[in-house]
């Protein structure tokens, strides 16, 4: 079960798409500067990956929420597996081909589609062959289980990073020891040494980015709220692909400044702003354009995404870089209610969010591949109901458009907006 390596055909196409969008954005004075910076950042990320082999660089494929700060500090080229799959869906529309290839491997349709698609893409030889596969159990069974098949498909070694489930001193120590073991593994396989000074710099950059994420979150509390719905995915991607990287900081600063200016001028992402929404989980990637249009049409704006953009309070310490990398895992928004026991604090945060952001309603994108998240649907609905915030649930797949047609989604959203209007 191995693949013959081909130059990353899909990666090359992603790079072309990002460059094109970036150039178009730069040429259009009405497009905010941050948009051009964002697509340039994406283009740079995938260009590094595309050229890595030719430049003799070591490539590490890794799953979501993996501390790629360590890879950057070791001059290893990261390949974020889930994001790369959804980029293929978003920019290339080739999800059918890679999902079919995943099915041919024997992966059941219940397995999260980015993971099925990723295995399929490797089986097709459409992605660069990684030198190592890195994966972890943060955030679910799919991430925990996706590594070994990819190792086999690429005939490469791998390292599994075991994230403890709860938070305690012993568990924090365990995670740090796991990171140490991973660094030893990478040093052995790549022949490259960890540059601790560089890691400290990256941690300082990540700390700055976390502050910017929080500032952006605060600005979105304004009425009207200044942030458009596709921006949500851009924030995710920024942390997933370029944590602590200067280009990510530059993008976030530009975005923060633009939003601050909009707030100062009383401008919203939609005008007039009629419905302030909480987004739970992730809307389908391939529908972002459609959702953007609906957002404008109905004056509906996503003001907060507690599962994905609400970072916990806490700072990183560059003088303790490894401990900081471990600490970041406890501060990421996803850690609050998607991993670890779902305690009172996590539930309280959902209702606090709804109140602080003056939310009119919540939309839960029930991604059928994400079991542990969907398990909270009833619970969130009940607690939001207690504070009189209605919640709409839409079944979907984040990369596969065959699950729920666009028109059906439109109908559900329209009905929900009617309900909000009546209230």
């Amino acid at each position: 079960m191995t693949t013959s390596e081909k130059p990353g055909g899909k990666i090359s196409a992603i790079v072309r798409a990002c460059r094109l969008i970036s150039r178009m954005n730069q040429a259009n004075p009405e497009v905010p500067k941050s948009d051009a910076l964002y697509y340039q950042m994406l283009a740079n990320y995938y260009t590094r990956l595309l050229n890595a082999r030719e430049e003799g660089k070591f490539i590490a494929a890794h799953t979501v929420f993996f501390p790629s700060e360590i890879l950057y500090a070791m001059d290893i080229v990261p390949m974020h597996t889930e994001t790369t799959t959804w980029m293929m869906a978003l920019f290339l529309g080739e999800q059918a081909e890679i999902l079919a290839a995943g099915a041919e491997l024997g992966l059941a349709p219940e397995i999260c589609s980015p993971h099925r698609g990723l295995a399929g893409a490797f089986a097709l030889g459409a992605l660069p062959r990684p030198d190592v596969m890195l994966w972890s159990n943060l955030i679910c069974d799919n991430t925990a289980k996706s590594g070994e098949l990819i190792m086999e498909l690429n005939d490469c070694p791998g390292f599994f990073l075991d994230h403890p489930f709860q938070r305690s001193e012993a568990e924090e120590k365990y995670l740090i020891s796991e990171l140490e073991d991973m660094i030893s593994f990478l040093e052995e396989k790549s022949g490259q040494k960890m540059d601790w000074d560089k890691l400290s710099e990256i941690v300082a950059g990540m700390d700055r980015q976390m502050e910017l994420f929080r500032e952006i979150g605060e600005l979105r509390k304004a009425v009207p709220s200044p942030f458009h719905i596709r921006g949500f995915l851009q924030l995710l991607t920024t942390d997933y692909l370029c944590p602590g990287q200067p280009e990510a900081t530059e993008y976030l600063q530009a975005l923060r400044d633009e939003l601050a200016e909009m707030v100062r001028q009383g401008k919203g992402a939609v005008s007039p702003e009629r419905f302030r929404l909480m987004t739970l989980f992730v809307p389908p990637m391939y529908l972002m354009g459609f959702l953007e249009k609906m957002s404008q049409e109905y004056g509906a704006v996503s003001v907060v995404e507690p599962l994905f953009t609400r970072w916990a309070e806490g700072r990183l310490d560059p003088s303790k870089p490894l401990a900081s990398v471990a600490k970041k895992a406890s501060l990421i928004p996803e850690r609050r209610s998607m991993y670890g026991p779902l305690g009172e604090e996590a539930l309280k945060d959902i209702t606090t969010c709804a109140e602080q952001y003056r939310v009119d309603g919540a939309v839960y994108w029930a991604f059928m591949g994400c079991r542990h998240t969907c398990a909270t649907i009833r619970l969130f609905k009940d607690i939001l109901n207690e504070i009189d915030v209605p919640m709409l649930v839409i079944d979907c797949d984040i990369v596969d458009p065959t699950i729920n047609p666009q028109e059906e989604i439109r109908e559900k959203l329209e009905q929900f907006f009617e309900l909000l209007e009546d209230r």
Partner: protein
Amino acid sequence: MVGEHSVMPVTVPRLDKAELPTLERFREVNATFPKTAEVLAHKRQGGKVFGWLCTYVPEEIIHAAGALPVRITGYSQETELEDGNAYLYINNCSFSRSCLQMGLRGEYDFLDGVVAGSTCDGARRLFDLWHYYIKTPFHHVLTVPRKYTEKAHALYYQQVVQFKQHLEEFLGIQITDDELRHSIEVYNESRALLRSLYELRKQDTPPITGAETMEVLDASFRMPKELFNQWLNDLLDELEAQDRAHKARARLMVVGSVMNNPEFIRSIEAQGGLVVTDELCTSTRYWSDPVVLDGDKSPLEAISRRYLNNFPCARMVPSDGRFGRILELARDYRVDGVVSQIIRYCVTYAHDLPLLRDKLKAQGIPMLALDVEYGTSGSGQIQTRVQAFLEMLEARKKG
């Protein structure tokens, strides 16, 4: 396809009550679970009962606390899951939804506590919702590492210590090392007896079927262990005294997701396959490995080491540990074919499937992969697929 063997008389006789009276006693426990006579008697005497959700929860600690540990399972039959579906979204496995429904309907209202491990998404979310909606007085979840390194063992040991302390605090008692040693003895005896039962299944014509064995296993985590051990001793005596011999078209092994429905196995055996072993968390993964007490280790350390090193679930990394044990069982029990039954949305097992298929293929062992729901009895399409699989295995034997 109707092959010549589809009409072949296959004899997997239903049991004459007089033949194995102890099996009837186990059946009675299963038929009345969760509110069995044994559980109710324990409660009447003022005893505490704790439900556990996964084989990474160390039962011996609950037992040493003087409480009765029972495994939380769902309906052992095909059932509408209206309440389960209303609270846990449908992309959570039917095992979780089935257990939750029983909890929501008060069928586990006698429980004083619920203990889970962070073993899989289904189990941890079942625990979360149980905590929120059912509100059993005591709740505890253990962080269970996914590795076997010494550091992982140290973390798990710390979790086991914390669980013991939490339990002591809740019950207002101290659990002594002697009590733990005694519980280890009781549980190890149970494991040894189950091993004896399984040894019988290695015979060319085993005296017990796979479905009957599942009935024994089900009872093993639903009643006091001391009593179970007595009964299992009785059953082994009865089996020795009888001249039972089950011939089969093929010797099969069942692997995959949690499954404790004897009817599923019975439906396979009714077609002439004989399930001679299994790799399930309700069977070999539950009882195979004893707690090893040696001079250096405290009983708690011994328990901790056993539970993390136990016959691995698909959650553990690397998967080779699990695959190796499956291949070992297949060889020891001279298995002709493997039936993989994976509950929909049980993705830990679903991810392993392509890799396991390759490993088995390399050993010349065919695999039938079934997508099932928890509690399925193996009717309809499953029967058709099993029938075709058995025909294929027979054709291979004939050369």
